[in-house]
């Protein structure tokens, strides 16, 4: 095995990490800003994949328009779900969120089964990425590079939004003291709708971007939400950088775990999560629970 091979494995891990990041960062953001644990988050990832399939009619040529339509549709769906289902339960005990978002997960899975059937739905690699890129004589699938770029760009835009805009500062303030922010005249309910829609759109983008690599099935939602929770638990629930770090760690662990200990590859992410929970229960980049003064 030469260097090129390891590089390919590295890229594979990062490509997987990219979709994981898009999936997990929304979960983290929604929890951080709104205090909602969204068990249905993986279902919107799944929905993103199916919507891309529908919008592109399964044709690789429809990829770009499809991707933009997925983003737009997910923003609308996210906003509607927050308004109709999530908003009534903010003031309720946490069990309500778990029951409600779990119900959404079941409903979306059945909805997808009803609309698209239980079989696999896939999309060929878009034409722009049909030929590989050669590095050190090794062919690299250029779509992997696209995924890494997409996630990197999303992370950068998200950072700029949160730390360089007033709206972003409101989102950060909402994670710290919602009631006070509202008492300063900020329409927090509307802000929440926006944050939820954004988190859902990111997840849908992640799921859609995975479609050319991995076929969509109704069962992918549950897998996705488990992976997303592992990522945010490792990185720190509520932290954008934590989601990025967690996604990269899990992506690389998977890619290289399969190489060296294939029979254990499934276990590594859980083992890492358990280790983090033991040593740093608030996650690698999360903040320890503060004592309120």
């Amino acid at each position, binding site marked *: 095995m030469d260097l090129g091979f390891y590089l390919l494995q590295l890229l594979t891990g990062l490509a997987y990490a990219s979709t994981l990041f898009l999936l997990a960062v929304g979960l983290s953001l929604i929890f951080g800003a709104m205090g909602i644990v969204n068990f249905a988050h993986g279902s919107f990832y799944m929905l993103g994949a199916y919507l891309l399939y529908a919008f592109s009619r399964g044709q690789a040529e429809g990829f770009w328009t499809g991707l933009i339509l997925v983003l737009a549709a997910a923003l609308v769906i996210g906003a509607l779900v927050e308004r109709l289902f999530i908003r009534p339960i903010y003031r309720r005990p946490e069990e309500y969120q778990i029951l409600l978002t779990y119900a959404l997960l079941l409903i979306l899975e059945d909805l997808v089964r009803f609309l698209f059937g239980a079989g696999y739905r896939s999309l060929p690699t878009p034409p722009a990425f049909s030929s590989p890129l050669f590095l050190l004589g090794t062919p690299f699938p250029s779509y992997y590079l696209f995924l890494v770029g997409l996630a990197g760009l999303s992370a950068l835009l998200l950072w700029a939004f949160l730390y360089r805009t007033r709206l972003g500062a409101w989102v950060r303030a909402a994670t710290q*003291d919602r009631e*006070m*922010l*509202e008492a*300063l*005249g*900020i329409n927090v309910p509307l802000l929440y709708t926006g944050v939820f829609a954004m988190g859902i759109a990111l997840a849908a983008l992640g799921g859609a971007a995975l479609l050319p690599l991995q076929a969509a099935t109704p069962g992918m939602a549950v897998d996705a939400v488990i992976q997303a929770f592992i990522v945010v638990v490792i990185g720190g629930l509520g932290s954008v950088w934590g989601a990025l770090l967690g996604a990269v760690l899990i992506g690389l662990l998977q890619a290289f775990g399969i190489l060296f200990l294939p029979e254990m590859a499934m276990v590594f992410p859980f083992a890492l999560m358990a280790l983090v929970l033991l040593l740093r229960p608030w996650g690698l980049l999360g903040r320890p629970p*503060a004592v309120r003064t």
Partner: protein
Amino acid sequence: MSLRLEGLSAGYGGIPVLHGVDLEVGEGEVVALLGRNGAGKTTLIKAVMGLVRVYAGQVVYWGQELTPLPSYRRAQLGLGYVPDDRRIFPELTVRENLLIAHRPGPWSLEKVYRMLPRLQEIEHRRGGLLSGGEQQMLTIARTLMTNPKLLLLDEPTEGLAPLIVEEIARLVLELKREGMPVLLAEQNLRFTGRVADRAYVLETGEVRLSGTMDELLHKEEVAALLSL
């Protein structure tokens, strides 16, 4: 009349803390709420801001009934709330704490910094790292950034050193000179005597006494009600 409460009953979880309170704040007037801990001062201010349940009565602000409005609408109409527990956003810098609250009007970052120069010196520090006095300054400044038309100050001098209390007195008097109506909850009689025109004395959620500060400061009942 900038603010008028009529028969206001309010509280938490179905249990009223205030019982039929009537109160008025005139234009440009600084009105104090006096009373011991638990008398209902904070609940009254929160009820005006829409942060506790109102069970009966009305909150009328410049002729508009506020009771059905959420707190952000009240703030947008010009109610400026300064909570007693300060509630600075700890992860945001001083500057960010100020900028997120800003709405158009005479108050700007420059004006706030001119009035409280200390805040400019520490503008890049995180809110959570400030001293108690700095936090209190920032809380008031943050509310001024919303360009309020009426200020609700909940125990602004609580737990602060005399020097800081003096600076807050100076600030409130300056606001008064500019014609800002203020409803002030306080236990510090000396401070209140300096800044307020009139006061209401609360006990167990009811108004026991009211009058001008000069009248009240000479009444023995006031001292008894505040258990001084």
